[in-house]
């Protein structure tokens, strides 16, 4: 089945994808941070039963998975880096196309995540809310009339919702304009961070915009505000693109074609370099300055597949750094061999 990130919409503009995350806890049970193993197991079983009526959501226990396995799931945005680092009884329930993934016993008992390729945050909310209603059919959530859905960290209470946009911003990132955007986003109660969220590097000029406040505003208002800022940033990016193309068209075009050439011919390549070159090629298509055949898969898909965990998964064994760089080059070359 086609994964959400294999859809063409993830390559069609500045907005790669949108995501909704809902945090929930079960009433009268300690939050995961204060659960013992027996308690965590009982929560896991209760949630497994609650999700069971929806057969499309496939449960997978995560308790004893290897570091490499979990790392690869983080790279595919199926689980959070915190969930990968945690120990103890925990699991996920996900749709086969990975557009909905529910983490069980993360920082909260339930963390629902729904992702949509391209600019469709409303659909992501519908999918997340449906998963929420499914669990609520048999589970009483911890809820307070004043504080809303109660979460382990009070910064998530209220709606328990984060709405995120994944944005590809090569013009803003390469001209340094991103610093001002990050500052401006903060003033609107939003955060703009690297592609894997908090504390991560903006590899491949990919950033994640999400709301900070979760209490005191309805889901619709939060979604509308985040969307409006994402569109504003998109406009700034495209305005900057016009300026860059007026001032340095030949330099940018040269950079895009060189990037394509390296990706099509490399024999060993580090992750940072590959991400930067793929970002240039993606920019080349979106800015209509690259007139060469599209690689065999979406650029965002290739970006995901060349991460450390994905390479190890394909190899079926642990590989050293030098070999990893060669395997990455092999994969990229194959994608660009069109």
């Amino acid at each position, binding site marked *: 089945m086609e994964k959400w990130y294999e859809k063409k919409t993830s390559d069609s503009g500045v907005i790669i994808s949108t995501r909704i995350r809902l945090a929930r806890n079960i*009433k009268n049970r300690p939050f995961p*941070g204060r659960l013992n193993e027996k308690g965590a197991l009982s929560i896991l079983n209760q949630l497994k039963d609650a999700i069971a009526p929806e057969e499309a959501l496939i449960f997978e226990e995560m308790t004893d998975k290897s570091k490499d396995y979990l790392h690869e799931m983080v790279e595919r945005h199926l689980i959070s880096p915190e969930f990968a680092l945690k120990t103890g009884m925990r699991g996920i329930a996900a749709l086969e196309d990975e557009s909905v993934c529910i983490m069980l016993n993360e920082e909260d008992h339930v963390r629902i995540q729904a992702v949509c390729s391209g600019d469709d945050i409303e659909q992501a909310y519908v999918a997340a809310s449906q998963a929420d209603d499914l669990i609520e059919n048999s589970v009483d959530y911890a809820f*307070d009339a004043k504080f809303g859905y109660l979460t382990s960290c009070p910064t998530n209470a*209220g709606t328990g919702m984060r709405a995120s946009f994944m944005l590809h911003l090569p013009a803003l990132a390469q001209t340094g304009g991103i610093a001002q955007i990050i500052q401006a986003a903060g003033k609107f109660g939003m955060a703009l961070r690297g592609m894997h969220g908090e504390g991560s590097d903006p590899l491949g000029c990919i950033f994640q915009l999400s709301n900070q406040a979760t209490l005191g505003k309805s889901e*619709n208002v939060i979604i509308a505000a985040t969307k409006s800022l994402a569109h504003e940033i998109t406009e700034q990016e495209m305005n900057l693109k016009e300026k860059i193309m007026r001032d340095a068209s030949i330099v940018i075009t040269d950079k895009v074609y060189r990037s394509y050439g390296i990706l099509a011919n490399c024999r060993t390549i580090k992750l940072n370099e590959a991400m930067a070159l793929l970002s240039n090629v993606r920019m080349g298509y979106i800015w209509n300055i690259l007139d060469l055949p599209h690689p065999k898969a979406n650029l965002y898909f290739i970006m995901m597949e060349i991460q450390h965990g994905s390479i190890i998964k394909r190899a079926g064994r642990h590989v050293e750094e030098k070999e990893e760089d060669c395997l990455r080059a092999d994969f990229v070359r194959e994608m660009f061999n069109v």
Partner: protein
Amino acid sequence: MLCENCNKRVAEVIIRQSVSGGATTETFLCSECAMQQMGGAPIEFIVKNFMNSIMGAGSELFGNTPQSSLVIENKECPVCGLSYEGFKATGRLGCANCYDAFRIQLIPVMKSVHGAAEHIGKFPKRGAAGLSRMREVEQLKVKLKNLIEQEEFEEAARVRDKIKELSV
């Protein structure tokens, strides 16, 4: 004694919190600043008899501490045992009941993080029938007002009856 926050009004309230190592800090506040710090808790809860503090022994007129005081102890959550200090150290609460146990301290935290301390939006259908009814009544009251303004009295009467029915 003047309020330690505004340095203008007379201190009427003591906020006492235990800190690590068993020590206790005391903050002397006027009722207005105390209200602000406690996120608008009911006034009768925090304002003590002003006259008592003026007229009683050890009144502030003699430079002593306020007689009547509210003491906020830094208690533990009775359900999971987490202390407020424990929460401050990790930023994580232990259970849903912590929100009740530390409600007074959490209100200003919520206001500073979210810019609000009152939930608006989705709520669970299970176990929140009262809240659901309350929200419906609020919406119907707005509808009733609009209908009266538009002089649609027949429909307004129906909405009024529905409000009565839900408010029983």
